[in-house]
């Protein structure tokens, strides 16, 4: 399968040539795609959500950069509430959030399917007001699940998608289609009708449509939605493979485990707001650790902990726990032993990703109720 790779690379080179020609042939325009953002754009950006807390964000290093991007539906609902996404080039960015938190709407805005009510964004450095169509060929997308013609085969469906691309290389289309099918493991089922595909095959065909040509950015919206564990694993390894080729991957999901295993960066959405953005390590280091002591005398243990100055002490049947704060656990152990509290077990608990997620996005209605 080296031929399609070569063809793909040639396609990418040719594309750059065309870009050069176009940009050199035009008079410089102060409002062009390549103009640096004006100082006015810097205001109104909440500093808390910027990666590393840099007040001056350089959007040219970002695959996706949004500024106060907002979308209000006709019913008045603010589906996307002034979010400032910063997706670094080369990252695998997990876009997390419960169902209905505005992830898909954000993706629709980024791809030009919807028009924002407020704010601006850049996709691979390009300003959509100068026309998204110039940059979209470099972006592969799977939005809200796969959508194809049920009466056509997988191969015919990909041919249809490729035919819509006015910058695709027509001569290499059959080779590129087969290569994309091969990458997602659908070559054997290529001539089956889409209607007869399983859910996993449909999802994979959706990803294959994004792989018809080399991309600089892949936007995958819930690519594992409704898949069984095997299907989920297949998609996960596919995403890893795409990222390994140097493509920036922006993948939305409500599944934490998935994001944890493949992502370098995460953004967490909750009711339209971006409540966290940063590296996965950054997310993990959030949240307060607790100490938990197993003991036959929880009441006395609790007294000792209170004397040390620990807070949020809760006692259960045979254990006590408290917010750890900055206290070294080994010192706590020494104090307990010194006070003759029988310590059967002692552990510090870091909040799980799920705890952090729930903390950021709120309990589900049936949990908090």
């Amino acid at each position, binding site marked *: 399968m080296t031929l399609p790779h070569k063809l793909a690379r040639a396609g990418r*080179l*040719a594309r750059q*040539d*065309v870009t*050069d*020609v176009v940009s050199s042939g035009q008079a410089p325009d102060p409002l062009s795609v390549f103009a640096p953002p004006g100082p006015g754009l810097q205001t109104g950006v909440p500093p808390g959500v910027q990666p590393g807390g840099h007040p001056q964000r350089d959007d040219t290093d970002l695959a996706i950069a949004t500024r106060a991007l907002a979308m209000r539906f006709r019913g008045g609902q603010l589906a996307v509430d002034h979010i400032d996404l910063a997706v670094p080039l080369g990252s695998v960015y997990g876009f997390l959030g419960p169902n209905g938190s505005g992830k898909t709407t954000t993706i*629709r805005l980024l*791809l*030009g*399917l*919807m*028009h924002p009510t407020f704010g601006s964004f850049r996709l691979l450095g390009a300003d959509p007001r100068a026309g*998204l*169509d110039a940059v*979209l*060929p470099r*972006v592969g*997308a799977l*939005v*809200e*699940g796969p*959508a*194809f*013609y*049920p*009466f*056509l085969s997988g191969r015919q469906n990909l*041919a*249809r*998608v490729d*035919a*819509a*691309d*006015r*910058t*695709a290389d*027509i001569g290499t289309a059959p080779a590129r289609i087969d290569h994309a099918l091969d990458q997602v493991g659908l070559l054997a089922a290529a001539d089956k009708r889409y209607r007869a595909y399983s859910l996993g095959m449909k999802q994979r065909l959706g990803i294959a*449509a994004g792989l018809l040509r080399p991309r600089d950015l892949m936007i995958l919206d819930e690519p594992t939605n409704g898949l069984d564990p095997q299907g989920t694993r297949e998609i996960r390894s596919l995403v890893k493979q795409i990222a390994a080729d140097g493509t920036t991957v922006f993948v939305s999901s409500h599944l934490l485990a998935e994001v944890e295993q493949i992502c370098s960066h995460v953004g967490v959405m909750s009711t339209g707001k971006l409540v966290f953005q940063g590296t996965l390590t950054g997310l993990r280091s959030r949240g307060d650790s607790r100490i938990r002591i197993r003991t036959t005398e929880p009441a006395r243990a609790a007294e000792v902990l209170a004397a040390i100055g620990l807070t949020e002490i809760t006692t259960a049947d045979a254990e006590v726990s408290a917010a750890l704060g900055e206290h070294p656990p080994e010192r706590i152990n020494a104090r307990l032993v010194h006070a003759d509290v029988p310590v059967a077990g002692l552990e510090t608990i870091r909040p799980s990703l799920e705890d952090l997620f729930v903390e950021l996005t709120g309990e589900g209605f049936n949990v908090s109720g």
Partner: protein
Amino acid sequence: MSADNAIALTPARAPAAAARHWLRLFRSELRIVFLRPRNLLMLLVLAGGPVFLGVVLYFNTPQPGSGGGPGAGAFIGQVADNGVFLSLLAIFLLLTLILPLAVAVVSGESVAGEAGIGTLRTLLTVPAGRTRLLVTKWLMVLVFCFAATMIVAIVGLVMGALLFPIGPVTLLSGNTVPLAAGLLRLAMIVGYVTAALAALGTIGIALSTFTQHAIAVMAAVLVIVTASDIADAVSQVAVIHPYLPTHFWFSFDALLRMPIGWPDVMHGLESFAVYTVIFGLIAWFRFNRADVTT
């Protein structure tokens, strides 16, 4: 690939490449429409129209020259004399309901159908280009209108030739013209009916940009056709008759006179053109601004 080469090739190649890419999309669009089992069935039903009429008239041969009068009667009486009139009769009768229905289905499907199954978002993120896609859809509907009319005309001719004598054509004005001239008149009628259906198809495309339910568009288009027909039959509102979308549909009988009733034909074509332009613009405005939520 040097920069010099690229600069030298680009201006000459760009329009040609754009045309090649557009043709590829157009072919794909035609394939989607003409390979869809449901549409094929619809074309088959259209072909069945003249077959049915031919068989019925073969076994219940009308008296030559009988019927007369306006409308279908003018053709029925002539079929036994000349098979060419089976083609005209079939076009006339199918244009009352089945041809508009077929156009309503395909034009309603054009944008709303893609939105309904979600393929619209795939096409737009490729990106196919909204205006480019809409123009492709419109030309596809135009081709479909022509193909549908043509199928009725051709099958009508074949059945007419098989079941009835074929020869010089006696026009509605009483003059007789050679068969070749008669077939030329038939071809002009096919063109006229295609234009009438294309105007209806453009209305369908425009409505199709407002919804994701193709069936709603089909129903709306048929309601428009029926309402227009009813209004056209009420003489109290004669003042609006020339503005109704279906008012000139059957004016093609002017093409069967000697000399041809050009004023009637031109009025019809003008009406179709105005409807096409107005609803084409509505479709374009709407489609370029619409938020795609499916």
